[in-house]
């Protein structure tokens, strides 16, 4: 109680605290993604990381719930002007939470399919994992700085990763090769793409208005129209 009384005079910025909690979600999301992807690609023992992965996902979920609670309190105490900011945060916190879910899906894939990927797919997935991990680190930094220029560059990178995943999925489906591991590869590409898409959504919050969240910016032609 005494500690609380002495802290009453401090100027607490609720939005700053919520953004810090969101940043923590992004960090932990990247951690679970890389951990799960390593397990799938054969770089880590599944049993060693299981507990850490599930605990981190739980923390992500708890942080999302904490942010939601604080959003209600923030809008209540700050009034209608705070609503757009809070709606954005509500939306991107969901994106950060979904990364944890997809990481678990990748982990499930590793558990269901003890054979690690091999050959060119393994190399490609490793390179993709590194690109996504770098994107996620940069996404956190750019979000903290609210750097629009850097956000646009990262959005382009995210799109490129998504296109690559789509291309690989169609290749796997149309070629019909790799019957043993094809489904697993396709799902891995699908999950990698979804993780990238959620980072993309977070990045759109920096450059897009509220109603255009999760969507690409229109090209110069459509803007002129």
């Amino acid at each position, binding site marked *: *109680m005494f500690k*609380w*009384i002495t*802290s*009453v005079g*401090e*100027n*607490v*910025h*609720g*939005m*700053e605290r919520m*953004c810090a909690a969101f940043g923590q979600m992004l960090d932990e999301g990247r951690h679970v993604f890389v951990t799960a992807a390593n397990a799938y690609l054969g770089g880590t023992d599944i049993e060693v990381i299981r507990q850490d992965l599930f605990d981190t996902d739980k923390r992500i979920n708890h942080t999302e719930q904490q942010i*939601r*609670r*604080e959003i*209600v*309190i*923030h*809008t*209540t*105490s*700050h*009034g209608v002007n705070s609503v757009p*900011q809070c709606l*954005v*945060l509500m939306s991107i916190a969901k994106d950060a939470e979904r990364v944890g879910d997809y990481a678990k899906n990748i982990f499930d894939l590793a558990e269901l399919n003890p054979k690690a990927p091999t050959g060119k797919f393994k190399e490609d997935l490793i390179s993709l994992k590194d690109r996504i991990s770098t994107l996620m680190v940069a996404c956190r930094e750019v*979000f*903290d700085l*609210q750097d629009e220029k850097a956000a646009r560059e990262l959005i382009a990178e995210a799109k490129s990763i998504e296109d690559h995943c789509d291309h690989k999925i169609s290749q796997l489906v149309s070629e019909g090769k790799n019957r043993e591991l094809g489904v697993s590869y396709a799902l891995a590409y699908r999950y990698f793409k979804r993780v990238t898409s959620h980072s993309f959504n977070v990045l759109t*919050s*920096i450059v897009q208005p509220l109603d255009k969240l999760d969507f690409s910016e229109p090209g110069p032609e459509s803007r002129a129209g």
Partner: protein
Amino acid sequence: MNEPIQSPNLRWLNRLRLVLVLLLLFLFLVAIELLGSSFKAIGKDTAEQLVASVTNPFAGLSVGILATVLVQSSSVTTATIVGLVGSGQIPLSIAVPMVMGANVGTTITNTLVSLGHITRADEFRRAFAGATVHDFFNLIAVAVLFPLELATGFLRRSAVFMAAWLQPGMGGKLPNPLKDAVKAVSKQVVGGVESTGIQGGWLALALFVIALAMIVVALMLITKNMRVLMAHRIEGMLNDVLGRSGLLGLLIGIIITVSVQSSSITTSLLIPMFGSGILQLEGAFPIMIGANIGTTITALMAAMVAGEAGLIVALVHLNFNLTATLCFFPFRRIRNVPIICARGLADMAVKNRMWVVAYVGVVFVVIPALGILVFRWIGLT
């Protein structure tokens, strides 16, 4: 996305806001002084006739409820009562039940706020129960303490005792530059109105209307500006109270209400939190009790310029809420009574929305209005 850290401009704006709040507080005190002047201008006989219309404590209680429901602010009602008692226009025996009535009347605001959730049953159940728990607490407090006060006068006696201790410090005997400044400005306003040629009853009416308008505007603007100034801290405190002990909630209720000068603001802030389910009745109840105590600060401020009698009324308001808290808060079984009542009413209201209309209408309008009419009819007002 990120909220900018307070810029120098914003800091200056906040400082200006603080200065504005201090000026508004001064305006509020001038209004209280002016209220007394308006009754002096009306003439002793006419004033006595007017006040004689309410000489029964039950009618006083009803007037307190109705007046607060009408102005939607117990601060306005209690400050006005303090001003009127200070100028000798209302006897203490009537002012005390009026203050109790104001405590009941003020709870209508958050009940009305909870109606914003009426379209979603579960949300409404939580919000309405959250709002009416305050109503039930105050109604039970009046039901217990009002007869006790009539029988023993313990609230008045304790307030008189406390006032005797406080009065020298409140400006009765020691020189009080604030009171002098307030009187000087008030005299200027009276002189200004007199210079228009208005006299007698009309002058009194004009001064009364001006004083009342000044009280309402000053308190409204103080609340509005303090809410902006305190937004971050209120947010921090509300975050702190989630899942913490009752005593902290009580303290937070007092601090927020003293800061924004309105218990309705404090209790209404909680309604969306109830509606969304992040705050439970048991956790929020102490905040509401704290708001009851915190709201007494307005009458105490008004008492700074209202003399000993005004101070006694303000202390009655404080003692009433402190006694109610001490009677109900420490004992879980008693504390649960308003919670059980509020949950029961909310369940009924969800099943049939007419219960909402019936409850608000009967408790806040019909009973107080009948209280006044019946006593007038039998000649005991």
